[in-house]
Protein backbone atom coordinates (compact mmCIF):
# COMPACT_ATOMS: atom_id res chain seq x y z
CA UNK A 1 0.00 0.00 0.00
CA UNK A 2 1.17 3.52 -0.68
CA UNK A 3 0.17 7.11 -0.16
CA UNK A 4 -1.12 7.79 3.33
CA UNK A 5 -0.18 4.55 5.04
CA UNK A 6 2.44 6.20 7.22
CA UNK A 7 -0.43 8.13 8.76
CA UNK A 8 -2.09 5.72 11.18
CA UNK A 9 -5.00 7.97 12.03
CA UNK A 10 -8.42 6.46 11.55
CA UNK A 11 -11.52 7.43 13.48
CA UNK A 12 -12.31 4.82 16.14
CA UNK A 13 -14.90 2.14 15.48
CA UNK A 14 -18.29 2.18 17.25
CA UNK A 15 -20.92 -0.56 17.30
CA UNK A 16 -24.46 0.63 16.61
CA UNK A 17 -27.61 -0.79 18.21
CA UNK A 18 -31.14 0.42 17.55
CA UNK A 19 -34.50 -0.22 19.13
CA UNK A 20 -36.99 -0.94 16.35
CA UNK A 21 -40.09 -0.12 18.39
CA UNK A 22 -41.21 0.82 21.84
CA UNK A 23 -40.95 -2.28 24.04
CA UNK A 24 -38.61 -4.18 21.69
CA UNK A 25 -35.03 -5.12 22.56
CA UNK A 26 -32.11 -3.29 20.95
CA UNK A 27 -30.64 -4.92 17.85
CA UNK A 28 -27.16 -4.72 16.40
CA UNK A 29 -27.13 -2.77 13.12
CA UNK A 30 -23.43 -2.65 12.24
CA UNK A 31 -20.65 -0.21 12.98
CA UNK A 32 -19.50 3.31 12.14
CA UNK A 33 -16.26 5.23 12.41
CA UNK A 34 -16.40 8.49 14.36
CA UNK A 35 -14.11 10.82 16.26
CA UNK A 36 -16.35 10.95 19.35
CA UNK A 37 -19.65 9.71 20.75
CA UNK A 38 -21.66 12.64 19.44
CA UNK A 39 -20.41 12.11 15.90
CA UNK A 40 -20.94 8.36 16.26
CA UNK A 41 -24.62 9.02 17.06
CA UNK A 42 -24.93 11.27 14.03
CA UNK A 43 -23.21 8.81 11.70
CA UNK A 44 -25.26 5.94 13.10
CA UNK A 45 -28.47 7.83 12.40
CA UNK A 46 -27.39 8.77 8.86
CA UNK A 47 -26.19 5.27 8.07
CA UNK A 48 -28.66 2.94 9.76
CA UNK A 49 -31.84 4.91 10.39
CA UNK A 50 -32.77 6.79 7.23
CA UNK A 51 -36.17 5.09 7.02
CA UNK A 52 -37.39 5.14 10.61
CA UNK A 53 -35.79 1.77 11.38
CA UNK A 54 -35.70 2.68 15.05
CA UNK A 55 -36.84 4.97 17.82
CA UNK A 56 -33.61 4.89 19.83
CA UNK A 57 -29.91 4.32 19.13
CA UNK A 58 -26.98 3.16 21.26
CA UNK A 59 -23.38 3.59 20.17
CA UNK A 60 -20.62 1.72 21.99
CA UNK A 61 -16.86 1.90 21.33
CA UNK A 62 -16.14 -1.46 19.66
CA UNK A 63 -13.09 -2.10 21.82
CA UNK A 64 -15.26 -1.86 24.94
CA UNK A 65 -17.27 -4.95 24.05
CA UNK A 66 -16.30 -8.25 25.63
CA UNK A 67 -17.68 -11.20 23.72
CA UNK A 68 -17.73 -14.96 24.07
CA UNK A 69 -15.73 -16.85 21.47
CA UNK A 70 -16.74 -19.73 19.27
CA UNK A 71 -14.31 -22.03 21.07
CA UNK A 72 -16.18 -21.24 24.28
CA UNK A 73 -19.50 -22.01 22.71
CA UNK A 74 -20.03 -25.53 24.01
CA UNK A 75 -18.79 -25.34 27.59
CA UNK A 76 -20.23 -21.87 27.96
CA UNK A 77 -23.78 -22.60 26.92
CA UNK A 78 -23.94 -26.33 27.53
CA UNK A 79 -25.12 -26.51 31.17
CA UNK A 80 -28.66 -25.82 30.05
CA UNK A 81 -28.88 -29.19 28.33
CA UNK A 82 -28.58 -31.26 31.50
CA UNK A 83 -31.20 -29.21 33.29
CA UNK A 84 -34.34 -30.17 31.40
CA UNK A 85 -36.35 -29.42 34.55
CA UNK A 86 -35.94 -25.76 33.66
CA UNK A 87 -38.38 -26.16 30.81
CA UNK A 88 -42.14 -26.45 31.20
CA UNK A 89 -42.23 -29.49 28.86
CA UNK A 90 -40.45 -31.43 31.64
CA UNK A 91 -43.64 -31.55 33.72
CA UNK A 92 -46.72 -33.57 32.94
CA UNK A 93 -50.19 -32.19 33.13
CA UNK A 94 -53.29 -34.36 33.71
CA UNK A 95 -55.19 -35.07 30.52
CA UNK A 96 -58.37 -33.48 31.86
CA UNK A 97 -56.64 -30.16 32.38
CA UNK A 98 -55.17 -30.21 28.90
CA UNK A 99 -58.59 -30.89 27.36
CA UNK A 100 -60.26 -27.94 28.96
CA UNK A 101 -57.97 -25.61 27.06
Amino acid at each position, binding site marked *: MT*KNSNNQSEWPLWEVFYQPKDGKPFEHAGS*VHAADAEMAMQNARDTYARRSEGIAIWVVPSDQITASTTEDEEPFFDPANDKPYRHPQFYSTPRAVKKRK
Partner: protein
Amino acid sequence: MTEEEKREAFQERIDNGEKIEPKDWMPDRYRQQLIRMMSQHAHSEIVGMLPEGNWITRAPSLKRKMVLLAKVQDEAGHGMYLYSATETLGVRRKDLIEDYLYGSAKYSSIFNYPTLTFADICVIGWLVDGAAIVNQTMLAKSSYGPYSRANIRICREESFHKKQGYEMLAKMADGTPEQQKMAQDAVNRWWWPTLMMFGPHDEDSPNSEELIKWGVKTKTNDELRQDFVDRTVMEAKAIGITLPDSELKYNEETGHWNFGEIPWDEFWSVIKGDGPMNRERMKARRKAYEKGEWVREAAMEYARKQKLKEEKAS
Protein backbone atom coordinates in the same frame (compact mmCIF):
# COMPACT_ATOMS: atom_id res chain seq x y z
CA MET B 1 -8.90 -30.78 15.53
CA THR B 2 -6.53 -30.93 12.57
CA GLU B 3 -6.77 -28.36 9.79
CA GLU B 4 -8.39 -30.95 7.56
CA GLU B 5 -11.06 -31.81 10.16
CA LYS B 6 -11.77 -28.14 10.69
CA ARG B 7 -12.27 -27.70 6.96
CA GLU B 8 -14.65 -30.63 6.84
CA ALA B 9 -16.64 -29.34 9.80
CA PHE B 10 -16.76 -25.94 8.14
CA GLN B 11 -18.02 -27.36 4.86
CA GLU B 12 -20.62 -29.34 6.76
CA ARG B 13 -21.93 -26.19 8.41
CA ILE B 14 -22.15 -24.50 5.01
CA ASP B 15 -23.95 -27.49 3.49
CA ASN B 16 -26.44 -27.43 6.37
CA GLY B 17 -27.23 -23.83 5.53
CA GLU B 18 -25.68 -22.44 8.73
CA LYS B 19 -24.37 -18.88 8.77
CA ILE B 20 -20.71 -18.20 9.49
CA GLU B 21 -20.11 -15.41 12.00
CA PRO B 22 -16.98 -13.23 12.42
CA LYS B 23 -15.52 -15.15 15.36
CA ASP B 24 -16.05 -18.60 13.83
CA TRP B 25 -13.17 -20.57 12.42
CA MET B 26 -12.99 -20.22 8.63
CA PRO B 27 -10.47 -21.26 5.98
CA ASP B 28 -8.04 -18.44 5.10
CA ARG B 29 -9.13 -18.58 1.51
CA TYR B 30 -12.80 -18.07 2.55
CA ARG B 31 -11.78 -14.98 4.51
CA GLN B 32 -9.65 -13.65 1.64
CA GLN B 33 -12.36 -14.24 -0.94
CA LEU B 34 -14.91 -12.44 1.24
CA ILE B 35 -12.62 -9.47 1.83
CA ARG B 36 -11.99 -9.20 -1.90
CA MET B 37 -15.63 -9.54 -2.86
CA MET B 38 -17.21 -7.44 -0.09
CA SER B 39 -14.77 -4.56 -0.36
CA GLN B 40 -15.20 -4.55 -4.14
CA HIS B 41 -18.94 -4.33 -3.56
CA ALA B 42 -18.43 -1.45 -1.11
CA HIS B 43 -16.14 0.45 -3.51
CA SER B 44 -18.76 0.06 -6.25
CA GLU B 45 -21.47 1.66 -4.11
CA ILE B 46 -19.21 4.62 -3.38
CA VAL B 47 -18.08 5.12 -6.99
CA GLY B 48 -21.73 4.80 -8.00
CA MET B 49 -22.40 8.15 -6.39
CA LEU B 50 -20.27 9.95 -8.99
CA PRO B 51 -22.27 9.49 -12.23
CA GLU B 52 -25.50 10.30 -10.38
CA GLY B 53 -24.21 13.09 -8.19
CA ASN B 54 -23.25 14.74 -11.45
CA TRP B 55 -26.98 15.27 -12.20
CA ILE B 56 -28.30 16.49 -8.86
CA THR B 57 -28.05 20.17 -9.76
CA ARG B 58 -29.55 19.58 -13.20
CA ALA B 59 -32.47 17.32 -12.29
CA PRO B 60 -35.58 18.42 -14.22
CA SER B 61 -37.75 19.23 -11.18
CA LEU B 62 -37.54 19.73 -7.44
CA LYS B 63 -39.15 16.32 -6.92
CA ARG B 64 -36.55 14.57 -9.09
CA LYS B 65 -33.80 16.47 -7.32
CA MET B 66 -35.02 15.28 -3.92
CA VAL B 67 -35.34 11.71 -5.16
CA LEU B 68 -31.84 11.74 -6.61
CA LEU B 69 -30.35 13.23 -3.46
CA ALA B 70 -31.98 10.52 -1.36
CA LYS B 71 -30.75 7.84 -3.74
CA VAL B 72 -27.17 9.09 -3.73
CA GLN B 73 -27.29 9.21 0.07
CA ASP B 74 -28.47 5.58 0.05
CA GLU B 75 -25.51 4.57 -2.12
CA ALA B 76 -23.20 6.08 0.49
CA GLY B 77 -25.09 4.15 3.19
CA HIS B 78 -24.73 0.90 1.23
CA GLY B 79 -21.00 1.48 0.96
CA MET B 80 -20.84 2.03 4.73
CA TYR B 81 -22.84 -1.13 5.61
CA LEU B 82 -20.53 -3.13 3.38
CA TYR B 83 -17.30 -1.62 4.70
CA SER B 84 -18.58 -2.23 8.21
CA ALA B 85 -19.36 -5.86 7.35
CA THR B 86 -15.94 -6.31 5.72
CA GLU B 87 -14.20 -4.99 8.83
CA THR B 88 -15.65 -7.89 10.83
CA LEU B 89 -13.15 -10.07 8.95
CA GLY B 90 -10.30 -8.36 10.75
CA VAL B 91 -9.24 -5.72 8.23
CA ARG B 92 -9.09 -1.96 8.68
CA ARG B 93 -11.40 0.19 6.60
CA LYS B 94 -8.57 2.59 5.87
CA ASP B 95 -6.52 -0.23 4.34
CA LEU B 96 -9.45 -1.38 2.22
CA ILE B 97 -9.96 2.12 0.87
CA GLU B 98 -6.30 2.71 0.21
CA ASP B 99 -5.92 -0.63 -1.53
CA TYR B 100 -8.64 0.54 -3.84
CA LEU B 101 -7.36 4.09 -4.39
CA TYR B 102 -3.67 3.22 -4.74
CA GLY B 103 -3.59 -0.55 -5.06
CA SER B 104 -5.29 -3.32 -6.96
CA ALA B 105 -8.83 -3.54 -5.53
CA LYS B 106 -11.56 -3.23 -8.13
CA TYR B 107 -15.11 -1.93 -8.44
CA SER B 108 -18.01 -2.72 -10.74
CA SER B 109 -17.27 -2.08 -14.43
CA ILE B 110 -20.62 -0.33 -14.92
CA PHE B 111 -19.52 2.87 -13.22
CA ASN B 112 -16.91 3.50 -15.89
CA TYR B 113 -19.55 4.70 -18.34
CA PRO B 114 -20.56 8.37 -18.66
CA THR B 115 -24.05 9.77 -17.97
CA LEU B 116 -24.70 11.92 -21.03
CA THR B 117 -28.33 12.96 -20.43
CA PHE B 118 -30.88 12.81 -17.63
CA ALA B 119 -32.36 9.76 -19.36
CA ASP B 120 -29.17 7.95 -18.28
CA ILE B 121 -30.18 8.56 -14.68
CA CYS B 122 -33.56 6.94 -15.36
CA VAL B 123 -31.88 3.97 -17.04
CA ILE B 124 -29.32 3.56 -14.26
CA GLY B 125 -32.20 3.25 -11.80
CA TRP B 126 -34.11 0.78 -13.94
CA LEU B 127 -31.33 -1.36 -15.45
CA VAL B 128 -28.26 -0.92 -13.26
CA ASP B 129 -30.11 -0.99 -9.94
CA GLY B 130 -32.40 -3.67 -11.34
CA ALA B 131 -29.34 -5.82 -12.07
CA ALA B 132 -27.89 -4.98 -8.68
CA ILE B 133 -31.10 -6.20 -6.99
CA VAL B 134 -30.92 -9.56 -8.78
CA ASN B 135 -27.34 -9.95 -7.59
CA GLN B 136 -27.90 -8.66 -4.06
CA THR B 137 -31.06 -10.72 -3.48
CA MET B 138 -28.87 -13.76 -4.10
CA LEU B 139 -26.13 -12.36 -1.82
CA ALA B 140 -28.68 -11.78 0.95
CA LYS B 141 -28.58 -15.61 1.28
CA SER B 142 -24.79 -15.62 1.55
CA SER B 143 -23.18 -17.96 4.09
CA TYR B 144 -21.31 -15.11 5.80
CA GLY B 145 -23.68 -13.56 8.36
CA PRO B 146 -22.57 -9.91 8.22
CA TYR B 147 -22.56 -9.92 4.40
CA SER B 148 -25.98 -11.51 4.28
CA ARG B 149 -27.41 -8.95 6.72
CA ALA B 150 -25.89 -5.99 4.85
CA ASN B 151 -27.45 -7.23 1.62
CA ILE B 152 -30.87 -7.71 3.18
CA ARG B 153 -30.78 -4.08 4.24
CA ILE B 154 -29.51 -2.97 0.84
CA CYS B 155 -32.22 -4.87 -1.05
CA ARG B 156 -34.94 -3.15 0.95
CA GLU B 157 -33.62 0.22 -0.20
CA GLU B 158 -32.63 -0.76 -3.70
CA SER B 159 -36.17 -1.44 -4.84
CA PHE B 160 -36.92 2.26 -4.35
CA HIS B 161 -34.00 3.02 -6.66
CA LYS B 162 -35.23 0.72 -9.32
CA LYS B 163 -38.84 1.86 -9.17
CA GLN B 164 -38.05 5.55 -9.34
CA GLY B 165 -35.86 4.93 -12.41
CA TYR B 166 -38.45 2.81 -14.16
CA GLU B 167 -41.18 5.34 -13.44
CA MET B 168 -39.08 8.21 -14.80
CA LEU B 169 -38.17 6.27 -17.92
CA ALA B 170 -41.82 5.30 -18.51
CA LYS B 171 -42.74 8.99 -18.36
CA MET B 172 -40.01 9.88 -20.80
CA ALA B 173 -40.92 7.05 -23.16
CA ASP B 174 -44.46 8.41 -23.13
CA GLY B 175 -43.35 12.02 -23.76
CA THR B 176 -42.48 14.13 -26.79
CA PRO B 177 -40.69 12.48 -29.74
CA GLU B 178 -37.51 14.11 -28.53
CA GLN B 179 -37.90 12.65 -25.03
CA GLN B 180 -38.70 9.24 -26.47
CA LYS B 181 -35.55 9.37 -28.56
CA MET B 182 -33.52 10.35 -25.51
CA ALA B 183 -34.94 7.44 -23.48
CA GLN B 184 -34.28 4.91 -26.23
CA ASP B 185 -30.77 6.21 -26.81
CA ALA B 186 -29.90 5.82 -23.13
CA VAL B 187 -31.26 2.25 -23.05
CA ASN B 188 -29.25 1.42 -26.18
CA ARG B 189 -26.06 2.60 -24.52
CA TRP B 190 -26.62 0.95 -21.11
CA TRP B 191 -28.09 -2.40 -22.07
CA TRP B 192 -24.89 -4.34 -22.83
CA PRO B 193 -22.81 -2.80 -20.05
CA THR B 194 -25.61 -3.78 -17.64
CA LEU B 195 -25.46 -7.42 -18.78
CA MET B 196 -21.70 -7.30 -18.18
CA MET B 197 -22.33 -6.39 -14.54
CA PHE B 198 -22.93 -10.06 -13.73
CA GLY B 199 -19.34 -10.81 -14.68
CA PRO B 200 -17.80 -13.19 -17.23
CA HIS B 201 -19.38 -16.42 -18.45
CA ASP B 202 -19.31 -19.13 -15.80
CA GLU B 203 -16.51 -20.99 -17.57
CA ASP B 204 -14.37 -17.80 -17.60
CA SER B 205 -15.06 -16.86 -13.99
CA PRO B 206 -12.09 -17.97 -11.87
CA ASN B 207 -13.77 -17.57 -8.48
CA SER B 208 -17.33 -18.75 -9.07
CA GLU B 209 -16.97 -22.42 -8.31
CA GLU B 210 -15.27 -21.85 -4.98
CA LEU B 211 -17.70 -19.11 -3.96
CA ILE B 212 -20.66 -21.35 -4.68
CA LYS B 213 -19.15 -24.32 -2.85
CA TRP B 214 -18.86 -22.10 0.22
CA GLY B 215 -22.29 -20.61 -0.17
CA VAL B 216 -20.90 -17.08 -0.49
CA LYS B 217 -22.81 -16.98 -3.76
CA THR B 218 -25.81 -19.19 -4.38
CA LYS B 219 -26.20 -18.67 -8.14
CA THR B 220 -23.74 -18.39 -11.02
CA ASN B 221 -23.11 -15.30 -13.15
CA ASP B 222 -24.96 -16.76 -16.12
CA GLU B 223 -27.97 -17.82 -14.03
CA LEU B 224 -28.27 -14.34 -12.57
CA ARG B 225 -27.89 -12.72 -15.98
CA GLN B 226 -30.68 -14.91 -17.35
CA ASP B 227 -32.97 -14.00 -14.42
CA PHE B 228 -32.34 -10.35 -15.12
CA VAL B 229 -32.99 -10.60 -18.87
CA ASP B 230 -36.22 -12.56 -18.29
CA ARG B 231 -37.71 -9.96 -16.01
CA THR B 232 -36.44 -6.93 -17.93
CA VAL B 233 -37.80 -7.89 -21.35
CA MET B 234 -41.36 -7.64 -20.04
CA GLU B 235 -40.70 -4.33 -18.32
CA ALA B 236 -39.26 -2.85 -21.53
CA LYS B 237 -42.30 -3.97 -23.52
CA ALA B 238 -44.68 -2.47 -20.99
CA ILE B 239 -43.33 1.03 -21.57
CA GLY B 240 -42.64 0.78 -25.30
CA ILE B 241 -38.85 0.59 -25.08
CA THR B 242 -36.83 -1.63 -27.43
CA LEU B 243 -33.81 -3.55 -26.16
CA PRO B 244 -30.88 -3.27 -28.59
CA ASP B 245 -30.48 -6.98 -29.33
CA SER B 246 -31.82 -8.48 -32.56
CA GLU B 247 -31.30 -12.01 -31.21
CA LEU B 248 -33.60 -11.53 -28.24
CA LYS B 249 -36.19 -14.29 -28.57
CA TYR B 250 -38.44 -16.24 -26.24
CA ASN B 251 -37.46 -19.87 -25.99
CA GLU B 252 -40.58 -22.01 -25.59
CA GLU B 253 -38.56 -25.01 -24.48
CA THR B 254 -36.62 -23.42 -21.65
CA GLY B 255 -39.13 -20.72 -20.73
CA HIS B 256 -36.32 -18.16 -20.89
CA TRP B 257 -35.36 -15.36 -23.25
CA ASN B 258 -32.39 -16.12 -25.49
CA PHE B 259 -30.10 -13.19 -26.06
CA GLY B 260 -27.11 -12.29 -28.25
CA GLU B 261 -23.42 -12.45 -27.46
CA ILE B 262 -22.12 -9.86 -24.99
CA PRO B 263 -19.22 -7.72 -26.34
CA TRP B 264 -16.63 -9.35 -24.08
CA ASP B 265 -13.66 -7.46 -25.52
CA GLU B 266 -15.21 -4.27 -24.23
CA PHE B 267 -15.84 -5.88 -20.85
CA TRP B 268 -12.23 -6.95 -20.41
CA SER B 269 -10.86 -3.60 -21.50
CA VAL B 270 -13.09 -1.77 -18.98
CA ILE B 271 -12.01 -4.21 -16.25
CA LYS B 272 -8.37 -3.53 -17.12
CA GLY B 273 -8.89 0.21 -16.66
CA ASP B 274 -9.53 1.36 -20.22
CA GLY B 275 -13.26 2.09 -20.05
CA PRO B 276 -14.53 5.54 -21.06
CA MET B 277 -14.51 6.87 -17.50
CA ASN B 278 -12.03 4.72 -15.51
CA ARG B 279 -9.41 7.41 -15.14
CA GLU B 280 -11.85 10.20 -14.27
CA ARG B 281 -13.57 8.09 -11.63
CA MET B 282 -10.34 7.13 -9.91
CA LYS B 283 -9.08 10.69 -10.08
CA ALA B 284 -12.27 12.00 -8.48
CA ARG B 285 -12.11 9.41 -5.69
CA ARG B 286 -8.45 10.05 -4.90
CA LYS B 287 -9.05 13.77 -4.87
CA ALA B 288 -11.98 13.40 -2.46
CA TYR B 289 -9.91 11.19 -0.16
CA GLU B 290 -6.84 13.40 -0.16
CA LYS B 291 -8.70 16.69 0.13
CA GLY B 292 -10.71 15.20 2.99
CA GLU B 293 -7.63 14.36 5.01
CA TRP B 294 -7.70 17.61 6.99
CA VAL B 295 -11.37 17.04 7.92
CA ARG B 296 -10.55 13.64 9.40
CA GLU B 297 -7.62 15.08 11.31
CA ALA B 298 -9.55 18.13 12.52
CA ALA B 299 -12.39 15.96 13.83
CA MET B 300 -9.96 13.86 15.85
CA GLU B 301 -8.30 16.95 17.25
CA TYR B 302 -11.66 18.50 18.13
CA ALA B 303 -12.71 15.29 19.90
CA ARG B 304 -9.43 15.24 21.82
CA LYS B 305 -9.87 18.84 22.99
CA GLN B 306 -13.49 18.31 23.97
CA LYS B 307 -12.45 15.36 26.08
CA LEU B 308 -9.73 17.38 27.79
CA LYS B 309 -12.22 20.15 28.56
CA GLU B 310 -14.66 17.67 30.08
CA GLU B 311 -11.95 16.10 32.20
CA LYS B 312 -10.91 19.51 33.51
CA ALA B 313 -14.48 20.47 34.34
CA SER B 314 -15.13 17.35 36.39
